[in-house]
């Protein structure tokens, strides 16, 4: 009986993985189908022309460029604001901490449409026209909170006595920050930057309301899906999934290598 249950749970896990991955495979497969409509049935033979069409599409290249610029800006600003917020939150306590922390966290839950419209309205009122710069600000308003959470978690393992020691030995305030606190936070800041970058690429709701006339990749894909779709979008999807997979495999391999080094180190200790 116990055995059967375990087998069933393995099967369910397998089915769940298939459920997650099959749609992506089907979407990627349709990129090679020589059919005007994006699908894998009926199969009309292999072709690479959708990739060719994609690379010819000026609008896609502009959208890609815009996406990268926005994502980079969002990552940099979110890292700065998120790290500062984490350090600040970590050093205050009591009711004021609860209020400010709650306010910061709640930004993650605000619907993107609300963030987009409110950002547009406020900046429009003080004379800033819509455009991707507003998309950056709108995205930072909640992505900074994600960076803050990651950095805050890392701060819990920080030993404040190190800073005391540095100050006693005559370090300047800037040196304490740059040489002691920030190096400890770098892993979290790096992870935060990656999260911010990916979140920004994904974002649609905030961008849709603030972008003015400019395209980002998500907006471009969306407008292609709504109007006159051809499998060029599948070609783009395949490229994006491939990049994602390569990043994932690279991450997994480096993790395994680290594990092996750790194990090797331990077995040497035992000798």
């Amino acid at each position, binding site marked *: 009986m116990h055995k059967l*249950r375990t087998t069933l*749970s393995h099967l*369910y*896990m397998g089915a*769940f*993985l298939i*459920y*997650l*991955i099959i*749609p*992506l495979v*089907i*979407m990627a497969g*349709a990129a090679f189908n020589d059919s005007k409509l994006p*699908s*894998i*049935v009926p199969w009309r033979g292999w072709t690479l022309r959708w990739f060719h069409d994609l690379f010819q599409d000026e609008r896609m290249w502009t959208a890609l460029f815009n996406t990268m610029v926005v994502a980079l800006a969002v990552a940099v600003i979110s890292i700065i*604001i998120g790290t*500062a*917020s984490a*350090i*600040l939150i970590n*050093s*205050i306590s009591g009711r004021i901490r609860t209020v400010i*922390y709650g306010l910061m*966290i*709640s930004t993650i*839950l*605000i*619907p*993107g*449409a*609300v963030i987009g*419209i*409110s950002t547009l*309205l*406020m900046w429009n*009122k003080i004379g800033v026209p819509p455009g991707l710069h507003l998309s950056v*600000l709108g995205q930072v*308003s909640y992505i*900074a909170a994600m960076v803050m959470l990651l950095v805050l978690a890392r701060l819990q393992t920080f030993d404040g006595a190190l*800073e005391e020691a540095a100050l006693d030995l005559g370090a*300047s*305030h*800037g040196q304490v920050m740059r040489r002691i*606190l920030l190096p400890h936070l770098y892993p979290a800041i790096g992870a935060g930057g990656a999260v911010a970058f*990916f979140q920004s690429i994904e974002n*649609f*709701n905030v961008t849709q*309301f603030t972008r003015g006339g400019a395209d980002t990749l998500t907006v471009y*894909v*969306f407008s292609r*899906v*709504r109007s006159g779709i051809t499998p060029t979008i599948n070609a783009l*999807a395949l490229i*994006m999934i491939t990049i*994602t997979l390569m*990043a*994932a495999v690279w991450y*997994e391999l480096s993790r395994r290598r680290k594990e092996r080094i750790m194990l090797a180190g331990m077995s040497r200790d035992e000798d």
Partner: protein
Amino acid sequence: MQDLIRRYGAGLTGLMVLLVAFWLLMLVIIPNITLFESSFRPYLPVVEMGGPRDVYSVNNYMKVFDGSVETTILGMTFMVPVHIRTFFLTIWYSVTVTLACFVLAYPIAFYLAKIANPKSVPTLLLLLFVPLWVSEVLRAFAWWIILALKGPLNSLLLSLSLIDKPVRWITDYDAVLIGLVYTYILFMLFPIYNAISSLDTNQIEAAEDLGASRWRIHWRIVLPHSKPGIASGAVMVFMLSAGSLLVPSILGSTTSQWFTQTIQQWMNDALDWNTASAYAFLLLFLCTAFVSLVMWIFRVKLSDIAK
């Protein structure tokens, strides 16, 4: 605060306070106040702004009561204003999506935390993460392909003789629900997995030794322990679903309308930013109220959610 100044000096502390103030005031609080203020103003041509007709009123909010449609609830037919109907359907279907995500994800979370070989868990997690990194628009698009009338799902079912004519999947809200569950299920899975991981396996074994049934172990030990994770996942999935614009736009049919789509129509089609503000505020306010109510019922705090 004193401690910060002692460690990093007045200059750096001041800079950090300024950065946080910029974030919270300029990017969060003032935009939302502007949204709230605009929602009470009429939509006027530029020349009339600030003129005698530019007065506060609740007219924008009253627009939700315009234009009734016939709606059948539990066999009884009511006349319900169309936007109110859209709003309640959005909430109702978001709750459905949240429940479906929980039912599907809980066994996986338990499996990853307690049944799977610990050595293979990182690889499994990585495989689960891959779809999360693929953008939402592409995930919705993938289902648009699968669910098409002449798409792969119908051909598969036809060739297996499970159906004798193609099923129209993209009808009413059906495809929207399928797409939302697929898009947001991982936001349910990971918090529950984290919560169950912190449960001491000895507790489960002790209950087994004392003769508790499988259901009882889950009901009395695993579920109560993973409550913060479940609450966190449920709040995330609910807010993401209710606020989603991509999935309902791509997978919606002619008879489905999501509240965010209504907001977008006021904003981008009618160009009436003031009514769009009123509707956006309604979405924010009622979703927050709903989530607070659920959190109060389950006795979880906001700080539990952001773990």
